[in-house]
């Protein structure tokens, strides 16, 4: 008996060793190319980094760089606040939009595959450099301006905006919403993967649930909230994290542009590291706190 046990332990050990061998590239890469640079940049954020004469000299400077980022640098604090608030509003908008589109695409109609393909297209196309170019396309902007001028007063959203403004309640909130609606193109571009994830979640819900609810006299609206929503609530968490992370890594992100400028153009490595650490910690805290609250509400079916 004990011999068998020993043998089992041996097999488990062998499996464990081969498991480690399989993931060893990741471990090595992680330690060499992530942990080391991460600590180095953390260290550099507390240092004055001097690059003269082909050598790096780091002298400890305490919180100097952080003070610089918050107090001295004219742009950084403003950009940080702007970018973080943009991130909140847009991530919410992306989640809502992709949920809505996934609900529509889950219905049966002709040309569904084509529509799905089109919604997924931005994932492929608007990656890397292209998205950065897209956002400052002045030709498109001027075209939009001329269209706005020529169709003045005809626009539905503008009329709606006016009506809501005169109502006078929650003007700030409306303005946020309208800003998102004006930039619906950006929202649609960023929600390709989320739509697919929601869609695949929706397709796993068995139709017998809806039938049962239908027979009991449940309306479509009720079954949306009582069946669909809880059943795919875990995907909200996945999508939320993905959206926030995706948003803070986009190349047209102003904070990141600022950091790149400080690092490459001005060669101030210490300041750049401090800035990127502030940004990273804030984003991580944001992701952590929000996903904690979402995960408390998530309902797991099995």
């Amino acid at each position, binding site marked *: 008996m004990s011999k068998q046990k020993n043998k089992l332990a041996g097999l488990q050990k062998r499996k464990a060793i081969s498991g480690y061998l399989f993931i060893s590239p990741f471990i090595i890469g992680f330690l060499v190319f992530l942990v080391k640079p991460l600590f180095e940049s953390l260290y550099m954020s507390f240092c004055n980094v001097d690059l003269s004469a082909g050598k790096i000299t780091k002298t400890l400077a305490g919180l100097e760089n952080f003070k610089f980022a918050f107090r001295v640098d004219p742009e950084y604090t403003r950009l940080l606040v702007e970018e973080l608030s943009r991130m909140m509003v847009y991530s919410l908008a992306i989640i809502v939009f992709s949920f809505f589109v996934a609900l529509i695409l889950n219905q049966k109609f002709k040309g569904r595959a084509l529509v799905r393909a089109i919604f997924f297209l931005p994932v492929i196309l608007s990656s890397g450099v292209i998205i950065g170019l897209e956002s400052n396309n002045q030709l498109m902007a001027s075209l939009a301006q001329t269209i706005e001028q020529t169709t003045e007063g005809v626009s539905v959203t503008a009329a709606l905006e006016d009506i809501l403004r005169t109502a006078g309640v929650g003007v700030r909130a409306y303005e946020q919403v309208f800003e998102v609606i004006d930039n619906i193109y950006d929202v649609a571009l960023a929600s390709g993967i989320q739509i697919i994830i929601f869609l695949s979640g929706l397709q796993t819900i068995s139709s017998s649930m809806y039938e049962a609810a239908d027979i009991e006299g449940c309306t479509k609206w009720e079954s949306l909230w009582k069946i669909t929503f809880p059943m795919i609530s875990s995907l909200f968490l996945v999508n939320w994290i993905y959206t926030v992370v995706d948003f803070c890594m986009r190349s047209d992100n102003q904070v990141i542009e600022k950091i790149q400028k400080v690092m490459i153009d001005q060669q101030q490595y210490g300041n750049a590291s401090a800035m*990127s650490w502030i940004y990273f910690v804030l984003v991580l805290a944001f992701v952590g706190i929000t996903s904690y609250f979402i995960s408390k509400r998530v309902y797991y079916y099995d």
Partner: protein
Amino acid sequence: MTNSEAMASYKKMGFWERNKLSGGYLLKKVIGEKAVSIIRFILLFGMCFMIIQPILNKISVSFMTEQDLYNPVVISIPEHFTTANYRLAAELISLKEAVLNSFLISLTIAALQIAVCTLVGYGFARFEFPGKKFWFAMVLLVILIPPQTIASSLHLHFRYFDVLGIFKLITGETLNLRGSKLPYYLMSAGCMGLKNGLYIYMIRQYFRNIPGDLEEAAYVDGCGTLKTFFTIMLPQARPIITSCFLFAFVWQWTDGFYSRMFLGSTKLVSTGLSRIVDSLGAYIQRINGVKTTISVAYSNCILATGTLIIIVPIIVIYLFAQREFVESISSTGIKM
């Protein structure tokens, strides 16, 4: 009358008769369905148009002469049709060389990344070992950390590259690896390239969903771990590997961040595109001999043409492999 006969005779009736039988319910239902489908069509058409419109706009702009750009009458169909923009944009990003470089680099990098990520994903999916949870949490961390955070120190890391002080011992100098392609290949071999955490995650999910019976049968028959992996598991995972490879290729093709950081000296389509406006300025200055400011419209026109040239291969890939792209996401995203 049996049930099926009743159904058959019911179907023979006219619409209004049936409506009468149901007490007006049928009419309401049909109208409701039609209304929903019309609204859905309008909504979806609008959103699809919104996504496609920039591409269509770029296509029409790219065939216009400069004259047409300023003509307020010309909106989408050029009056003076020209392909000169294409020739100029191709020359500005030195198309042949850039495409060749980009193609080679994207192909090799994608192949390397996916090969390594498959190994790692398989390790996470199929083996039990102490510390597995911890390392998988680290994979998630890799997905979360923006590469820009560590950019500055990576920059220096490769500027003064050394492995445990060996090179310094031998040559007395640290290696300057900036501007060479080696660092990026090294990083890819260590799963730290562009979005590699995501590929590991996706591949792991896929392997986890393959039933373990086959693998166990192979073990019982005396197949080693490596042989089992290559002959039994790998062929089964072909769909996810192809789609991850396609993702890796396409994202590498358009990537600006890693390319600028590691491959700055190589001519690539992505970096060429991001510099195209500057090179247009330099080009015109060289021709005219005087420093001239280029009009916004014309530089944007060239930019649109350049973008089109670059995304054409991606669109072709997408058209053929659309299913792979979409289904890999839907098969892996579902189980957390």
